[in-house]
C-alpha cells in the first residue's frame, strides 16, 4: 500500500481509538454518576426490609462494593474478552438482550431512514429548483408541520385512524402475541405490525432531510457555474440532475450518515407508543432502572456505530465530490 495512504489511515485510526477510549470511560462513568441506586433491581421489591449485611452481600455479588477504578478495570478487561456481562434487572446476558432487540430496531429505524432520506432528498431538490413556487411553499409548509409535530402525537393519530378507528392495523407489538405463524402469514403479520411505527417515524424524519436538501441546493443554485450552465442553454433537468443535485449531496449524505450511526440506538418514543421491542426502549428502561451493565453495553454499540458512520462519511466525501480532496 502507498505509504501516504497508510499514514492517513494510521493517523485516523489513532484518533478514533482515542475517541473510543474516551467514550468507553464516559459510558462507564455517566451512569454511575446519576443519582439513585440499582439496589431495587438487584434485590427485588420491598428492598427497604433488607438489613445492612444483606445489602453488603448483594453489592459484593455484583462487584459494586469495589472501588470505582477497580470496577472500571474489570469492565475494560471483560470488554477486551468480548464480555458485556449480565443485566442487573433481568439477570440475562446483555449480548443476548441486545441481540434480540437489534433486528427489530434495524428493521424499523433503518427502513424508515432509507425511505425518509430518499423522499426528503427528492422533494427537497424539487422544492429548491422551483423556489418560491406553490410546490415549494406547499412542501415547506407540510415539512414544517411534520417537523414540529410531536412524535407521540403523530403516532397516536395514526393509531386512532388506522388502528382503533378503521381497524386495519394492529396498534401495539411487533408480532401477534402468542400465535405461531410461518411463511407468508408470518411475513404479513410482521409487516402489519411494522406499518404504523414505520409510517410515524418516516413522517417525522422526512422534513429534516428535506429542509437540508432544499437549503443546501439553494446555496448551490446561486453559484456561477450553474448560472453559466443555464446560460449555455443546458436543459433545466440536466442542470438539476447533473450539477445542482450532485453538489447538494454532501450535506445530505452527512445527515444520512449521522442518522445511520444512530440507527442502532432505536427510536425511543415511537417504540414506546407502539410497544415495539427495540433497543430504544431497552436503553430508556435501563436508564430509569440504573441497570449499569445494560447501559454500558448499549452505549458501546451506539458509540461504535456513530463513529463508524462518521468515518464512512469522511471517506465518502471525495467519492461524492471529487473536488473535495483528502487532506
Amino acid at each position: 500500500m502507498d505509504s501516504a495512504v497508510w499514514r492517513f489511515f494510521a493517523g485516523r485510526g489513532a484518533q478514533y481509538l482515542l475517541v473510543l477510549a474516551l467514550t468507553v470511560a464516559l459510558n462507564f462513568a455517566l451512569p454511575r454518576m446519576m443519582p439513585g441506586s440499582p439496589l431495587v433491581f438487584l434485590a427485588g421489591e420491598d428492598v427497604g426490609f433488607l438489613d445492612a449485611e444483606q445489602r453488603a452481600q448483594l453489592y459484593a455479588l455484583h462487584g459494586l462494593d469495589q472501588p470505582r477504578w477497580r470496577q472500571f478495570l474489570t469492565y475494560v478487561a471483560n470488554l477486551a474478552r468480548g464480555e458485556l456481562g449480565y443485566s442487573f434487572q433481568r439477570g440475562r446476558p446483555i449480548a443476548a438482550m441486545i441481540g434480540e432487540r437489534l433486528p427489530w430496531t434495524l428493521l424499523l429505524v433503518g427502513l424508515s431512514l432509507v425511505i425518509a432520506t430518499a423522499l426528503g432528498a427528492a422533494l427537497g431538490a424539487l422544492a429548491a429548483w422551483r423556489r418560491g413556487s406553490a410546490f415549494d411553499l406547499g412542501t415547506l409548509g407540510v415539512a414544517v408541520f411534520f417537523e414540529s409535530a410531536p412524535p407521540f402525537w403523530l403516532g397516536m393519530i395514526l393509531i386512532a385512524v388506522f388502528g382503533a378507528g378503521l381497524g386495519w392495523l394492529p396498534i401495539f407489538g411487533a408480532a401477534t402475541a402468542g400465535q405461531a405463524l410461518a411463511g407468508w402469514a408470518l411475513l404479513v403479520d410482521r409487516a402489519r405490525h411494522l406499518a404504523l411505527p414505520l409510517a410515524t417515524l418516516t413522517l417525522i424524519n422526512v422534513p429534516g432531510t428535506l429542509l437540508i436538501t432544499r437549503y443546501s441546493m439553494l446555496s448551490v443554485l446561486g453559484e456561477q457555474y450553474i448560472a453559466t450552465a443555464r446560460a449555455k442553454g443546458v436543459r433545466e433537468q440536466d442542470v438539476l440532475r447533473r450539477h445542482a443535485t450532485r453538489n447538494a449531496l454532501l450535506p445530505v449524505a452527512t445527515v444520512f450518515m449521522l442518522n445511520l450511526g444512530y440507527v442502532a440506538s432505536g427510536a425511543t418514543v415511537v417504540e414506546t407508543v407502539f410497544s415495539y421491542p427495540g433497543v430504544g426502549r431497552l436503553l430508556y428502561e435501563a436508564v430509569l432502572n440504573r441497570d449499569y451493565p445494560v447501559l454500558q453495553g448499549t452505549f458501546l454499540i451506539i458509540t461504535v456505530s456513530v463513529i463508524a458512520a462518521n468515518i464512512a462519511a469522511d471517506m465518502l466525501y471525495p467519492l461524492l465530490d471529487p473536488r473535495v480532496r483528502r487532506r
Partner: protein
Amino acid sequence: MRALVLVLISALLVLCAPVPSPGQAASLRMAIGRDEGSLNPYTYQSGYPGWNLMTLIYEPLFAPDADNIPRPWLVRRYTVSPDGRTWTLALHPNIRWHDGRLLTADDVKFTYEYVRSHTHSRWTPQVRLIESIETSGATTLVMRLSAQSGGFLMQPLADLPILPRHIWEGVAEPRRFNDSTGSGPYRLAEMRDGQFYRLVANDAYFGGKPKVREITLPIVRDATVTFTALRAGEIDTTSRALSPELVAEFEKAGGLKVVRGAGYASTILQFNVEHPILKDVRLRQAIANAVNTRLMVRLLLLGYGVVGSPGYIHPDSPFYNPSVAFAASKSRAVQILNEAGYIDRDRDGIRETPDGRPLRFNLLTLAGNPIRVRGADLIRTWLRDVGIDARVVAQEDASIIAQVWPDFDVCKGRNFDMAVFGWSAPVMNRATNLRDLFHSDCRYGTINIGGYKNSEVDRLGNELAATAEPARQKRILYEMQKAIAADLPVHVLFYQDGIYAYRPERHDAWVYQKGQGIVNKLSFVDPPRR
C-alpha cells in the same frame, strides 16, 4: 409531499388485508405495562402485577382471600402451639410440579432455607424468625419460631411461593436463573422479552380446573394505547387501573364492564420531620390545614377515591380508627401560623420563622406520575395562599428516591423538605405496617422515610409486632393511629380507587380483592377444597 402521503397510504392499503384471528373463546388477552422477568420468585419485577402473575405459577402455603385474610392453600390442615411459636403444617397430598413430580414437605423446607441464604428483599427478611424446620413424611412439617409474631401467617406463610427443590438445588445466582417450573394453576408456555407472555392452564392442578384455558399477556408500554386497544377489542382487559377521566366513557362503551373498589395504595405529603423548620408540628398542622384534600379527590380523581385519614389506615380496612378524622381549613391554617409566630415580616408574601428564616421549601414529586405532579402543583398554590413558598421539583423515580430514601435505607438519612410520595397496597395489608412506617429505629421503621420519632409510637409498634391476637392488634393500631394523627409526620392526601375494565364475553368471573384489584389468583381458580 402529497405524493409522499399517497405512496404511504397505498403502502398501508397493501398491508391492510384482513387477517382473521382464530377466536379461541377460552383465551384471554390481558395487557401488562412492562417486562416481568421470567415470572419466578426471584426474577419477577414489580409488586403489581408481577407478583400477582408470579403467584399464578408458583404458590405459597397459604393465600389471602378476597378480604386479604390468609387461608390455607397448599396446606390442608395446620395447628399452632399455645405460645404461638410452633406451627405444624400438613400439605395436600396430591400437588404436582408442572414437570409431573410431587410437591412435598421437602420442597417447602428447601424453599424456606434457600431464601434465607439467597437474598431476596421480599422473602429473606420474612423468614428471620424461623429457628428450625423439620419434615416428617412427604406432607408434614413443623416450623419453630424464635418468638411469637404478629405477621407470620401473612408473611411468609401466605406470601413466600414454594420452589421445586429438584430444579433449584445448586442454583447459586437465582437472579440469573430463568426457569419457570412451578406448581400453580398456570404454567409459562412462552415468553418474549419486551413482547409478551403466554400462560397455559395446568391440567393436573390439584385445586381443580383453572377458569381460563390460556392467558396471553402482551406488554403495552403506553397507558393511552392500552386503553385504546381495550376499547377497540385488541385486548380483553389490562392490569392497569382505568384512569378516572375514562370511567364514564368506558361504562357507556359496549362490550366492556367496569368494576370499582377500594384502593389501598396511598398518596401522601411526606414531611422531613428532621428538617430544622418542618420539625415543628404546628407548621405541619398548618400545612395540612391549607391542603384541601377533599377538592384534590374531586379534581384529580374525579371523585374516584377516598380522602386520606391522618392515621394512615384506609377507612375500609378492618383496622381503621374512625375517631381520627381530619377536616382541612384554610382559616385554621392561617390562625395556627400566626399563633406560632410565622409571620411575613418583610412583606414579600412569604412568612418567616420567628428568627427570620423564610418558609420556603422544595416539594419533590415523581415525574412519571402525572396525578402526583398535579397534586404537588395544587399544594403549591394552596400553600402560596397562606404565605408558604413551595417549589415543585419533578424528577424521575431513582433521582427522587436518592433524596427521599437514599439507597432504600432509612438508616442513611434523608435529604429533602417535603415530597408527594406514596406506598403501594401491600403496605396497608401488613398487620405490622404502622411499625414499618413510623418506628424511630431504622431497623424496624424500615420505611419511616421522614425520620419520625415518638417513643410512644415505638413502644406500641414493638407490642404490635409481637402480638398474634387480632383483637389486641386492632386495639394497638387504634392507639397508634391516634398518636400519628396528632403528630402528622405524613399528611395522607388520598387513596385512589382501583378501577378495572374488561370484556365480560371473554371472562366474567373476576374477583375484586379488597384494596388490590382484579388481577389475582382468585379470578382464575377457586380455593382448593380441604
